[in-house]
């Protein structure tokens, strides 16, 4: 099942609808699952990812909150300690800045600090990444922060089937999960004929097999990577393997290392700025594990070190896309 195929589908389920459908499925089967957040109820979510839930499950299980991100996450945590399985939405991932204590100092650590007396099985869904000219406070990719905080699972699907399967796994997980949904993905459509019920967290997917260079990516950038792979292959015949990490924590470094052992070359591409971004971790981890097999220095692709500007031309100058990945692939293929 490759992502490129799914992208061309003109009917089918959108990413947003897939999220909503999975939530509904899970809520039907499991009373412990509740949903809350800003505008997630009657309104169905500003990205429509909770559409229909309020009507089916009512105001007790689908709760509209006022604007209070810290209390939203803290309340979810409290519910989870008592056995609920809350799925809360933070309306834009940029607003995670408003509830970092509850995520980082509370949810991530409660199991550990309590010596295992408590667990926090909760999911924080949040639309992340760029959209089109949403500017500096609504375009960030902040996922890397959470990889530095032991106790949190950090995941982000790149397609509808994964979104459904990973969300299901996230809700069933005993650990708190940050679930990043890229804003450009919401309208992606896919036929969901044989959706796997679960996609296990911590397993990367090889989206496109190849032998000359490995491109590691996640979320929206998987699509840019696949496009770049296509471009490179048609231009030079080089065979590009594209890996969708799907989870940053746990990190399926084994799949990446296996690929690099084969290709000898690595590009890591994400939308976040390069410095402080998770691409560096992947590079460093691969260098430690596959030193001998690396034919050239791995290259990171990410945003330029600038806030995301509004004007389209400026935005393109800051954020990476398939052409940035093409350059990086070309560079790693050329060097040794």
């Amino acid at each position: 099942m490759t992502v490129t195929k799914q992208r061309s589908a003109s009917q089918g389920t959108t990413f947003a609808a897939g999220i909503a459908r999975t939530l509904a499925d899970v809520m039907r089967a499991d009373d412990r699952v509740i949903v809350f957040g800003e505008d997630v109820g009657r309104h169905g979510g500003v990205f429509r990812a909770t559409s229909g839930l309020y009507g089916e499950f009512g105001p007790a299980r689908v709760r509209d909150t006022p604007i209070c991100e810290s209390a939203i996450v803290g309340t979810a945590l409290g519910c989870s300690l008592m056995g609920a399985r809350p799925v809360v939405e933070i309306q834009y991932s940029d607003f995670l800045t408003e509830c970092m204590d509850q995520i980082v100092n509370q949810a991530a650590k409660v199991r550990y600090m309590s010596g295992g007396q408590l667990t926090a099985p909760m999911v924080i869904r949040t639309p992340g990444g760029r959209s089109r000219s949403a500017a500096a406070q609504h375009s960030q990719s902040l996922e890397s922060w959470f990889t530095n905080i032991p106790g949190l699972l950090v995941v982000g699907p790149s397609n509808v089937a994964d979104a459904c399967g990973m969300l299901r796994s996230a809700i069933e997980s005993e650990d708190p999960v940050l679930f990043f949904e890229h804003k450009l993905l919401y309208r992606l459509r896919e036929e969901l004929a044989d959706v796997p019920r679960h996609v296990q967290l911590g397993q990367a997917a090889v989206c496109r097999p190849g032998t000359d260079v490995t491109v590691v990516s996640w979320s929206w950038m998987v699509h840019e990577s696949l496009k770049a792979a296509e471009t490179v292959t048609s231009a030079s015949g080089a065979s590009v393997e594209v890996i969708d990490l799907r989870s940053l924590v746990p990190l399926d470094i084994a799949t990446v290392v296996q690929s690099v052992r084969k290709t000898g070359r690595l590009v890591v591409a994400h939308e976040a700025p390069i410095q402080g971004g998770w691409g560096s971790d992947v590079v460093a981890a691969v260098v430690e594990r596959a030193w001998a097999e690396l034919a050239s220095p791995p290259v990171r692709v990410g945003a330029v070190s600038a806030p995301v500007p509004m004007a389209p031309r400026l935005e393109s100058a800051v954020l990476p896309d398939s052409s940035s990945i093409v350059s990086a692939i070309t560079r790693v293929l050329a060097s040794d």
Partner: protein
Amino acid sequence: MDKDERPSANATAPQLPQWLSTAEAIRLLRTMARIRAFEEAALEQYRQGAIPGSLHVSIGQEACSAGACAALRDQDLVIGTHRSHGDVIARGGDVRRMMAELFGRATGYCGGKGGSMHILDAARGVLGANGIVAAGLPIAVGVSLWTDMQGTGSVVLAFFGDGAVAKGNFHEALTLSAMWRTPTIFFCQNNQYAVSMSIRDVYPHTSIDALAASHGIPTAHIDGNDVLCVLQETRKACGRSREGGGPSVIVADTYRWMGHNVADSGAYRAADEVTAWRAKDPMERLSALLLGGDVISSAELDRLQDEVQAEIRDAVSYAQESAEPAAEDAYLDVFSEQFSVFPGMGVTVARPDPAAATY
């Protein structure tokens, strides 16, 4: 809250109150007209695909920006929200540079980097719209703290929405402001909704006024569609601040006619509610007063509207004709001159750095 001092009764009277000059009254009308015309034009340009990103307009709420800013002196400062075109216009901002900013052009206030949600005019003391609900409030406290320490006599007008009241930042800002008695006017444009969330559903057992007043800050609850009332109450608050009386809160009831932003139809609101509020059009109310009191003739009113429309058309043309920023501009103003950002090298380095350029 001092209900008995509500000046709103005046506004429905058939003539202008004593304290307001004709020139002032007409200026208020013009400001509201400019705000409305600007935002209507922006919506139109958005629909035509000329404005990228999103857009939050304040149509129906113009009396708040116009009335409150009219109470300010030149050295006073304003902090806004995500819905703050009106602030810039009410402070005399340049609609050309505003429209250019919305278009993402190099001639815009922020060179196209900010757009609608980050528009500001520092030279006119408008320190910024803000994409994060309630985030401007602590900043406003800091601005007023410093101007107060400098003894400039400036006050700071900080707008926020009803939705901001649930945020911790609202209370933290009021706590520091009350404690330090900063000259801050916290002005709530209570348009009844935060996106789809009705304020009635959030506070079944209390009100914004009660929450604000509990900080020991004088709090007034006013008709935010009555521009004279807004002006008068804000003047009162400014006066108190300038005399060392510290902060005030003003809660102004108003309504946004449109959806939350261009992506929202506002379907969560009953049609008759919208209709009822549209009938309270703040511009209509002031025009009626001016016409009724023979302060302005209907021909003069038409001329005013024509002038405003022409000004906004000109702003649109200006934006259309302005150049897009150069791609390299994206790398400027991340840091001060001291440091440089180079695209693609993955680290920020102190300049000059020879190694930096190697990749």
